[in-house]
């Protein structure tokens, strides 16, 4: 069966510090991968998605970046965090070319920028 891992679960970082969140998927090949952010009291905002290694699409301009160095690894990064980067970050995957369009989510990372 497929599983998705995210770490760390919680993170407190000062403004201006770098960020690296990692997501890995097991049990599937060539998944579509996604990074979302949920700000407090708000819905899910798609940040990046990837359909393959090295292929990243950005949905919103910001100081965050994403990379996909391996088929089942997706990394969210920042060189300098802003206070507004605080939120709940979720990684998700879906079947490439699947007909059900379902996305499966990881447990999330709670990021607090102080």
């Amino acid at each position, binding site marked *: 069966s497929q599983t998705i891992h995210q770490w760390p679960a919680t993170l407190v970082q000062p403004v201006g510090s770098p960020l690296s969140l990692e997501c890995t998927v097991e049990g599937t090949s060539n998944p579509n991968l996604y990074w979302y952010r949920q700000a407090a009291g*708000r819905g899910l*905002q*798609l940040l990046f998605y990837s359909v393959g290694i090295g292929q990243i699409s950005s949905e919103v301009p910001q100081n965050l970046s994403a990379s996909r160095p391996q088929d089942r690894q997706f990394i969210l990064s920042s060189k300098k965090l802003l206070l507004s980067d605080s939120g709940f970050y979720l990684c998700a995957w879906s079947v490439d070319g699947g007909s059900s369009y379902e*996305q499966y989510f990881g447990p*999330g990372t709670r990021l607090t920028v102080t």
Partner: protein
Amino acid sequence: DQQVKQNSPSLSVQEGRISILNCDYTNSMFDYFLWYKKYPAEGPTFLISISSIKDKNEDGRFTVFLNKSAKHLSLHIVPSQPGDSAVYFCAAIASNYQLIWGAGTKLIIKP
């Protein structure tokens, strides 16, 4: 520009009664919709979906209704149970196969 709208931020329902969660969309090109359930500090989990070729899809206690002319869908949960207390998200598939999400409705089931 919110293409998928969940206008009720929260909903309180008595245990055993029916919970009805509503969702409206603006893009008539959307042809597949999904409902997700999310507990605090966890990722959303898929509940049920519906294609635009149908007007109803049922799975156990969960039924989703789609009214294409009104661009409206609803999720019915009956009977409501305490474990149903969560935030429910409606989402639609865009032309690039990405999910367009509503802001969510917090459902509270009262004992």
